[in-house]
């Protein structure tokens, strides 16, 4: 009886939650399929009278969305990969060794999260200009990497700490170097943590707007958030284009979640076998 009640309330919670979560997405998808005139016609229509893909055709043909999607993918994936590599190293060291500067490094990480970034934007632009990185994809890859190292390290450190150090000690007795023990023995066990870090980094990069607006000039190098921001005009928000753009920008991330989910599960089962 109690069990049923619990299950029932669980189902209600899930359903309610799903409705609240999904409704905005539903509204955006529906808007993206409405013709321009219908988007703001009253009474509001919860289903378009004329379904049209014109908004999608427009943003690809006129706004060249495929270019922005490519740039965003390239920049977000590169930066996320570099972040994972760098953060795995620093997280491992911070999880396994106690050294004099340990506390200071950790504090340094936490402190970066507290700095209000907007104050630093102008000096950062100056720095990028000195380094001749203005209007390059590298500027964004670099800054996105920098921005995500602290959190990724803190996150991965937690995962390393859950793995007993006897694991790599055994491997090192077998003749592995510490680095290869890290890569060969430990990383497979914590694939779920790495996947979570990667997803997190990717998504943050995928959404970043302010630096992308500031550092990139050429149309051919612009990223998705910048392109979407340009649908906000002086007197108008082009909701047809904006909603179609939103749908296109959410799809890759949802696909990534789906793929990564498999990794997370895989990491789990591997961990269970080894443990």
């Amino acid at each position: 009886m109690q069990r049923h009640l619990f299950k029932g309330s669980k189902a209600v919670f899930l359903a309610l939650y799903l409705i609240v979560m999904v409704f905005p997405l539903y509204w955006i998808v529906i808007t993206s399929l409405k013709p321009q005139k219908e988007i703001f016609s009253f009474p509001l229509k919860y289903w378009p009278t004329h379904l049209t893909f014109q908004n999608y055709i427009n943003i690809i043909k006129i706004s060249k969305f495929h270019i922005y999607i490519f740039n965003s993918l390239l920049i977000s994936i590169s930066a996320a990969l570099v972040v994972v590599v760098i953060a795995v190293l620093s997280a491992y060291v911070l999880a396994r060794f106690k050294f004099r500067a340990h506390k200071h490094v950790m504090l340094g990480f936490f402190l970066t999260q507290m700095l209000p970034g907007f104050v630093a934007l102008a000096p950062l632009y100056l720095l990028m200009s000195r380094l001749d990185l203005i209007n390059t994809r590298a500027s964004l890859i670099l800054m996105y990497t920098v921005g995500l190292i602290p959190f990724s390290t803190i996150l991965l450190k937690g995962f390393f700490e859950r793995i007993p150090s006897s694991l790599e000690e055994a491997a090192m007795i077998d003749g592995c170097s510490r680095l290869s023990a890290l890569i060969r023995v430990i990383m497979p066990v914590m694939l779920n943590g790495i996947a979570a870090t990667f997803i997190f980094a990717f998504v943050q990069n995928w959404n970043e707007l302010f630096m992308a607006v500031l550092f990139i000039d050429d149309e051919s190098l612009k990223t998705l958030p910048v392109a979407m921001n340009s649908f906000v005009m002086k007197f108008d928000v082009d909701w047809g284009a904006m909603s179609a753009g939103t749908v296109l920008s959410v799809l890759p991330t949802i696909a990534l979640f789906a793929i990564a989910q498999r990794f997370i599960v895989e990491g789990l089962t591997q961990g269970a076998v080894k443990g």
Partner: protein
Amino acid sequence: MAAKKEKKMLLGAVAGVLLVGVLAGCGDNGNGGSNEGSGKKVTLRMIESLTSPARTAVLQEMIAKFETANPNIKVDLISPPFDQADNKIKTILGAKEELDVLEVRDSTISEFSNNGYLESLNDYVKSWPDYATVVDVAKSVASLNDNVYFVTNGMYQRQMFYRKDWFQEKGIQPPTNYEEMVAAAIKLTDPSKNRYGFSFRGGAGANGVPDAMIQNYNFDNIDHDDSNFLKDGKSMYSTPEAKQALDLYVKLYKEGSPKDSINWGYQEQVQAFTSGVTGILLQDPDAIPSLMEKMDVNTIGTAPMPKGPSGKSFTATGGAGWGIAKNSKHKDEAFKLIAFLSSPEQNTYFATKTALIPIHTSASKDPFFQTDMYKTLLDMASKPDEFVNLKANTKYPGIGQWGQVAMESGQSLLLGKATEEDTLKKWDQFWADQKANLK
């Protein structure tokens, strides 16, 4: 397999460290190299501020024509999103990053010239024949302290848009003065039908309507060279007439506008009109494309701006245009581009495409501006005694803050958290401070 992976990982890590080294190394070198000496071809960097995807396309088309006519000049157009554009321009200028042509607005001219970012164009326009046909208003909005800082690319001026069908339904005429406008707005308002009279804007840009009303209520005393002040040097917010105007303004919000509009900006204000929530909109001509795209054109009427008690109305003309950055290395080429974009032919084309008022006298004959939507603006221009042009007051560098101050204190007033007297006192103080700080 694992060994290969390991090598790749290590390589990545090493590459990362190397990258850092290289970057840090670059930092010591200081100034980045400039791309000079590659033949005689000059590349101009140009940035726009009032960006929209459609406008950018028009600009690019015009630039392409320029490049064909001038094979030695290449133009890189930077089009940041409208929302962020002025901030990006300020950052570029502040960092002294290369920039040749930039879009200066009436709202930024004072700040940019004050910081020494802008080249005076006085000598350039002297030797430019087309400048003779540029109308005075376009010249005055682009100059400050006897210096021309930009060549206007389009002007905007408010007019009244109203719902013809709603007015017919209620049997009322389009209002000619502010009293009538407020009365009409109240009549049109019917919350049960989700209909409201006036497309009010209490958010960004909220100062537009109260400023215009207070100016018109002080009509005879306004200093035409310093339009927030009276001829005796006091601010226009200090008079009993200002209080009258503000009374009416509060009434307009409370009885004739949606409650929600206290936080609306430009976009919501226009959206409310296009969605059939509001019946009267005071806006610039560049809102017209939005209206035509989303509404049944037969329902839209236009009328001149409302008048004050004097039976006259000030018209304020705003504008933006192309200026040259002080540290540009290619100023002659930059002006060549500006002159091309501002020729009667190109400017008129640009104006029709972006729904702005063109700058050359000849252009108003263009059939495009004879259509219903624009005719009212021409009518207003043809009666300069009734619709008196008031020079935009752009000389105060701190003017950018006015919008923010007026918005916040205005919202307090509309919410009933501040009295009209206190609000006017605050506004009076703001402008008195501006005047005192002016060098």
